[in-house]
């Protein structure tokens, strides 16, 4: 029988093979993370949500989870509530722990090597975000924990099957079929997926399970599948672009030069500063470091997610707070993502996943805000008046 040609980087993998591949990985003890539909109505939680009580289709939560079984794999799902970030920068993680003996203190750091793992069907906006954060994590300080996890993880993206009115990846240089930050990209085609391995890690995955892949060299559908894939992907880009189109560069520069502009200065009025947007954001990476005691003279130093939307984020020991209301705090969020970060690292600190907009029940709408800034940036005179 014919095996995949290692030189080629595009393969076809059938639904069954993909499931089998997952099974093999799990069998080999490799952690496999993928979007999983969680039945939030599982008893006794059912009573928690009216959605569960409604007749007809039951609601589900989509979460990136470590698969227990290949059967859980389900590539039809939309965007998980929390981004893939949590697997590289967990909500909280230990940095070290200490114990005091009399007047001596013993400190123990945590290991920074991690077992290899695979992410399947990652959202392109999520993998792209990792690549963006890589910049800061390897800037003045090389973050072992972040990089350790990055290196140990092979990420296989799936070109987005689901797009809604809050998606705007194309407006910030990403795409629904992007492989940025990932090692391979899956695209749905009839009978299975096209798999493009774009990095060594990606190719290694293919080689390790070569029996599951067919090189797209032979005739007999390859070309058709290729076309089908290309059309699907183009269509998706168009659908996203319909939500928002901006000139990221002029937005970046305009923000940089219009710090006090009313448009920026009054952004936070309806914002509650809850920071839910940062929690769900794939690119927000700010953390706080806390020492948590476990008793007398012993405890753990942990870092946990923090958000620039919280007053305490910039509260000085003196009691002075340079960002003393939600206006400057929200401006900071926009400023950092679309101006400061791009100017420093050449990357927008946003991949257009739209989670912040979806999660905000106060109606802060990033699509709308970027639109407004874009208009101001393109027509300075309009903004001036």
């Amino acid at each position, binding site marked *: 029988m014919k095996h995949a040609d290692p030189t080629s980087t595009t393969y076809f993998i059938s639904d069954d093979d993909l499931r089998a591949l997952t099974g093999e990985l799990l069998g080999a003890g490799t952690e496999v993370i993928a979007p999983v539909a969680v039945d939030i109505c599982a008893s006794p939680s059912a009573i928690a949500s009216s959605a569960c009580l409604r007749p007809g289709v039951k609601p589900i939560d989509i979460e990136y989870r470590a698969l227990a079984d290949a059967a859980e794999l389900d590539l039809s799902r939309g965007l998980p509530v929390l981004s893939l970030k949590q697997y590289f920068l967990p909500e909280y993680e230990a940095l070290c*722990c200490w114990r005091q003996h009399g007047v001596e203190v013993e400190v123990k750091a*945590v290991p920074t090597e991690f077992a290899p793992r695979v992410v399947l069907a990652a959202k392109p906006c999520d993998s792209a975000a990792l690549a963006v954060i890589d910049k800061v994590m390897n800037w003045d300080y090389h973050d072992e924990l972040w990089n350790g996890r990055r290196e140990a993880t092979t990420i296989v993206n799936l070109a987005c099957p689901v797009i809604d009115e809050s998606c705007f990846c194309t407006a910030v240089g990403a795409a629904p079929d992007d492989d940025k930050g990932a090692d391979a990209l899956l695209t749905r085609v009839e009978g299975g997926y096209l798999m493009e391995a774009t990095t060594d890690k990606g190719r290694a995955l293919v080689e390790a399970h070569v029996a599951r892949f067919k090189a797209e060299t032979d005739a007999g559908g390859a070309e058709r599948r290729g076309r089908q894939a290309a059309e699907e992907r183009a269509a998706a880009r168009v659908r996203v672009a319909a939500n928002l189109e901006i000139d990221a560069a002029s937005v970046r520069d305009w923000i940089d030069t219009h710090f006090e502009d009313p448009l920026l200065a009054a952004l936070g009025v309806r914002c509650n500063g809850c920071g839910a947007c940062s929690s769900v954001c794939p690119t927000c990476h700010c953390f706080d470091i806390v020492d948590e005691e*476990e008793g007398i003279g012993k405890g753990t130093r942990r870092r946990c997610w923090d958000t620039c939307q919280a007053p305490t984020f910039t509260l000085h020991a003196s009691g002075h707070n340079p960002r003393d209301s939600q206006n400057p705090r929200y401006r900071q969020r926009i400023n950092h993502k679309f101006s400061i970060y791009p100017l420093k690292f050449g990357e927008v600190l946003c991949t257009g996943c739209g989670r912040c907009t979806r999660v905000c029940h106060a109606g802060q709408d990033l699509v709308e805000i970027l639109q407004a800034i874009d208009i101001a940036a393109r027509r300075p005179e309009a903004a001036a008046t």
Partner: protein
Amino acid sequence: MSDAIDISGAAATAGGEADGFEPRITAFVCNWCTYTGADLAGTSRLHMASNVRIIRLPCTGRIDPLFIIKAFERGADGVIVSGCHPADCHYASGNYHARRRFAVFHGIMELIGVDPRRMTFSWVSASEGAKWRDVVDEAVTNVRALGPFDAYRALAPKDAGVAAPAGPSAAAASASAGAKAEAS
């Protein structure tokens, strides 16, 4: 991790302890009635279980439910909260305010699934040394029957590289705690 530092306060509560389990009970008592009542129990040489550790406060009015939560976090299997009888408060009304706070706290803990028998509330006056003995012994008996509060300890963070607090996993623990709750 074998070479990790064990920082888990509740290390000794490893499941094996289940037989011959000795409950750890923290008592938050007011200085004027119950603490003095406990003194009287001492001067009257009333023998009682040795599982209780007393934290002295000026008044039950000073007691914040966070004290009790922290005690559970720190490995207590049960708590006792005790102060002056109504109308006897050294500060006139501290215990009345405490009584309402505890009622609400008690209700919430029950909703959440904490067995109320892990929390003993009592009024013990300065002259009730014997009652204090009884409160202590009863609390110890109850909590011994319920077993270790592993369900709460299992909430402790599990960090890579830091020895996880002993005791079964959250699910297992709650199940076992539940089993005990039903048994007793």
